[in-house]
């Protein structure tokens, strides 16, 4: 393998080759001249002060070209006497050593110092081996060639033993760790209600972990996920296991010692954050730089694998020590939270309503006990972030990313350690578990005093009066094992199929480009036919909820783009078609249990075919990889909601502001998922002059939501209406204060809009008037700068063409009624309607509830 060398850009072209100093076959030393060339250049000669003045003279210079590498010269691409115009490859030199393995700046093959540079070297030799693919070393780097060779060997071996690679996360995936001293106390105390649960907890101390302030020398308590031994034993037969954790190396080794004492499962294939080289993300490329075709990941966090999602099986986080979370992720960006399942689907005891108010883990405990119907305990708070962790987690992901760019390993590690130390200290000081148990005890006592009928609350289960805080019922690994063998089977089925084809068709092997160096050995075929897990697995997954068209309600927090939220990405990977609005195509509405009366629930309730389920249905379906029966998860929808839908459709016609504004074809409607939760991303666009204050609105109802879709043309129409005296709502308290906006037009428009608002809310109570006026104020402010915006909006809009007739209100009201009965109308129209109901009912429910 020769290395073609180029002349480089620093020469004065054109040049003429005058002499080749080496023949093909000669050995070449670094910095040795191999070529002579001549070039012409001009310069001014003479003395400008002299009477002859200055003149230009052409001169001929010669130069030597020196070899930047050691090796043997193979072939010249140029001849003596040739004239060359630019940098071209001109000679082939076979290097003695490709320097493809480097350790601390030394070539691992020839022992030369790679950091040395000289005048002859064109590139830095350290750049030739940049890939870091060894689990426990960062100093060792290999080149692309070497990496692919190593990976090829690995793949052949795996194929031979019919295995795949499995990258396993530790924290909250196969174990749960905490350093709460309370656990140790419970372990020692046989009378503790939690004794049974913590009996199996293992502990260790980290000695060689450096100074850690308060947290140094503390005990780490490790709870293995139920069924872990079996799981690993079985899975290791069909997978080669790797550990990839965000914990420190010492921590990872200790865990491995507990989980896999004889190093049979993981061997030395353990990588920790010390070697990861990245603060917030894990990457398969760190271990499998060339090809991730045969790698499956299990992790409880999908967001740390930004590049490898198709290979990932997201595991439901194992949360044994409640409220602790992941002790090794305090420096990661905050987990996206889902609203917790605070209520069981069927029973909706009044008590549970109270439960919702307080977001305390032990409250959740209680509700679980009420739910024998659930196969899996709803106890596991879906996405609870540890309360003590908030301090460390305030740093935004972006900042982290910026910092990651720095790449200084040592500094990065120190930072991580500092973050974690803070977090651990807090845990030691606050002892959240102890507090929770105390509170639980207190509540128990209270309950006994009350002596009410709530015996179902778990007292039957436990002979003693105290409830235990920690529960150990988790079936996730069982499903996980099933999925893994499913993926393995699918992968090798496909591979076998391809193998038969490849062997049958000799043509394939004769094709140019077919690598002849890879004969079929050990029954293992060409690696090109190996299927890709990242294709195979999503295919299986996507069949799970293939035919489900889902709308989510109350699951994605304010200000988060639905399509980029964790839950949505997950759902989509399982084949869900995600819609943002309730329509006839929708099959399921996934609602948060804590918010069962949102507009979307009501809209969905109106359509018989839509199943309204709580988020646990979705989570369980995704966890089991099969569509769960909806029955146990159905959300109770109050009759009034249903009735309201059927009984008085479009009973408040004056919401035409919304009806029309939606026809603007406004694209961001997809994100306005939850009527008063998601702030439209494009708000900035309209807020050119930063006139819309960004204060928080108590009900989460931002007036800006209405504004940005507000139809000014229609406002004009209403103004006409108003001026004609058809609607006299004169007592406009806000109008008087309108001194800032000078233009007559905007003032009028404002009043028109105000009228619309007034009518829209004609049926709501007076309490709303405060919010109303605020809304109106916003509109007025916005109107004062409408002129520039109007033309932007109108072109897309059909209905908002200038000068609509004054009777448009009435028409719209009627149209609404008709449209409701007629489902076959265009989607667009339907969307308009839904938007109308959104607005109308949200305000209604906000005022009423």
């Amino acid at each position: 393998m020769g290395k073609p060398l180029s002349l480089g850009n620093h020469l004065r072209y054109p040049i003429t080759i005058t002499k080749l100093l080496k023949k093909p076959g000669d050995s070449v030393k670094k910095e040795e001249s191999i070529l002579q060339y001549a070039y012409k250049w001009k310069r001014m000669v003479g003395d400008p002060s002299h009477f002859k003045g200055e003149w230009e003279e052409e001169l001929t210079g010669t130069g030597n070209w020196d070899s930047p590498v050691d090796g043997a010269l193979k072939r010249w691409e140029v001849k003596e006497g040739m004239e060359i115009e630019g940098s071209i490859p001109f000679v082939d030199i076979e290097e003695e050593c490709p320097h493809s393995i480097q350790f601390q700046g030394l070539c691992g093959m020839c022992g030369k110092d790679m950091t040395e540079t000289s005048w002859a070297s064109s590139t830095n030799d350290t750049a030739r081996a940049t890939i870091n693919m060894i689990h426990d070393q960062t100093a060792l780097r290999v080149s692309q060639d070497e990496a692919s060779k190593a990976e090829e060997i690995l793949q052949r071996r795996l194929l031979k033993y019919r295995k795949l690679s499995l990258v396993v996360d530790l924290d909250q995936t196969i174990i749960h760790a905490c350093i709460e001293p309370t656990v140790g106390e419970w372990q020692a105390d046989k009378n503790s209600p939690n004794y049974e649960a913590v009996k199996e907890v293992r502990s260790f101390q980290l000695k060689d972990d450096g100074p850690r302030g308060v947290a140094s020398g503390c005990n780490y308590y490790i709870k293995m996920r139920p069924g872990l031994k079996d799981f690993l034993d079985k899975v290791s037969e069909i997978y080669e296991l790797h550990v990839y954790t965000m914990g420190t190396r010492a921590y990872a080794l200790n865990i491995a010692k507990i989980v896999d004492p004889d190093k049979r499962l993981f061997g030395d294939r353990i990588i920790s954050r010390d070697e990861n080289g990245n603060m917030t993300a894990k990457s398969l490329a760190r271990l499998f730089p060339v090809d991730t075709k045969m790698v499956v990941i299990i992790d409880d966090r999908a967001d740390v694998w930004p590049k490898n999602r198709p290979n990932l099986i997201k595991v439901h986080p194992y949360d044994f020590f409640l409220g602790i979370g992941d002790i090794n992720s305090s420096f990661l960006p905050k987990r996206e939270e889902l609203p917790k399942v605070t209520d069981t689907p069927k029973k909706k005891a009044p008590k549970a309503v109270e439960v919702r108010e307080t977001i305390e883990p032990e409250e959740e405990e209680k509700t679980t006990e009420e739910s024998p119907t659930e196969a899996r305990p709803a106890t596991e708070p879906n996405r609870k972030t540890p309360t003590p962790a908030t301090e460390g987690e305030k740093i935004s992901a972006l900042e982290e990313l910026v910092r990651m760019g720095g790449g200084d390993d040592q500094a990065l590690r120190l930072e991580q350690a500092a973050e974690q130390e803070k977090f651990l200290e807090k845990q030691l000081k606050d002892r959240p578990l102890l507090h929770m148990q105390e509170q639980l005890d207190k509540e128990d006592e209270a309950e006994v005093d009350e002596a009410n009928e709530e015996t179902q609350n778990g007292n039957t289960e436990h002979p003693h009066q105290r409830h235990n805080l920690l529960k150990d019922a988790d079936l996730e690994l069982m499903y996980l094992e099933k999925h893994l063998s499913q993926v393995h089977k699918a992968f090798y089925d496909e591979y076998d199929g391809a193998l038969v084809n490849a062997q049958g068709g000799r043509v394939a092997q004769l094709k140019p480009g077919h690598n002849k160096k890879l004969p079929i050995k050990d029954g293992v075929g060409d690696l090109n036919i190996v299927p890709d897990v990242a294709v195979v697995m999503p295919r299986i997954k996507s069949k799970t909820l293939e035919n489900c068209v889902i709308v989510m309600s109350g699951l994605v927090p304010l200000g988060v783009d639905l399509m980029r939220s964790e839950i949505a990405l997950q759902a989509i990977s399982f084949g869900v078609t995600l819609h943002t609005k309730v329509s006839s195509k929708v099959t399921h509405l996934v609602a948060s249990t804590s918010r069962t009366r949102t507009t979307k629930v009501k809209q969905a309730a109106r359509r018989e075919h839509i199943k309204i389920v709580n988020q646990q249905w979705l989570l369980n379906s995704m966890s089991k990889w099969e569509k769960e029966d909806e029955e146990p998860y159905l959300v109770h929808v109050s009759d009034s909601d249903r009735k309201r839908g059927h009984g008085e459709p479009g009973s408040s016609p004056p919401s035409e502001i919304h009806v029309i504004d939606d026809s603007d074809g406004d694209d961001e409607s997809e994100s306005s998922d939850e009527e008063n939760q998601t702030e439209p991303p494009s708000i900035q666009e309209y807020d050119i002059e930063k006139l819309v204050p960004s204060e928080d609105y108590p009900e989460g109802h931002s007036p800006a939501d209405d504004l940005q879709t507000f139809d000014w043309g229609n406002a004009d129409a209403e103004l006409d209406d108003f001026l004609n005296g058809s609607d006299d709502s004169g007592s406009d308290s806000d109008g008087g204060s309108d001194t800032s906006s000078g233009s007559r037009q905007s003032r009028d428009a404002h009043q028109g809009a105000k009228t619309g608002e007034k009518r829209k809310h004609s049926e709501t109570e007076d309490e709303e008037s405060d919010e109303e006026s605020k809304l109106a104020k916003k509109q007025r402010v916005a109107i004062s700068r409408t002129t520039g915006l109007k033309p932007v909006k109108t072109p897309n809009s059909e209905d908002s063409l200038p000068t609509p007739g004054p009777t448009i209100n009435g028409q719209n009201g009627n149209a609404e009624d008709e449209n409701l009965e007629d489902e076959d109308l265009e989607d667009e129209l339907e969307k308009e309607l839904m938007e109308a109901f959104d607005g109308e009912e949200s305000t209604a429910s906000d005022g009423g509830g």
Partner: protein
Amino acid sequence: MFFVLNLTHQVTLHPSYFGRSMHELVTGKLLKDVEGTCTGRYFIITIMDTVDISEGRILPGSGLAEFNVSYRAVVWRPFKGETVDAIVTSVNQVGFFADAGPLPLFVSSHLIPPDIKFDPNATPPQFTNNEDSVIEVGTHVRVKLIGTRAEVGSMYAIASIKEDYLGCLQGS
């Protein structure tokens, strides 16, 4: 290779230590400061004796006393081509790492005889020729250094076992 060198070092002493046993304190501090360090060219293995301890000089401003100590020390300077014994610390498919005393070194698979192959399925993973040579973590190996590099306070080396009489040490 090991050498005996005459070296000097500056030791400073806090005023609270001024007194009769000052010279012992200076020697003790010298041992603590110097022994086991790497200068970038060699490792100071051990200090044999102090040849001379100069008069103390009080540093103006701080009151610390400064002594110039000359001492004899055994140093080890790893040379290219030197043969050393080492203990394996980590094995992976690209090669293995070993420590020759204070010197971490790496032996890549290119510098291992072709008959000794990496076996990832063994526990623990090892390089083996399925006969007498098994290189795993903890194995004693004899290697030849083929390149060294120094950084501030540390040195690294590349080594080879691809020659006669190199590799696993028998009976270890």
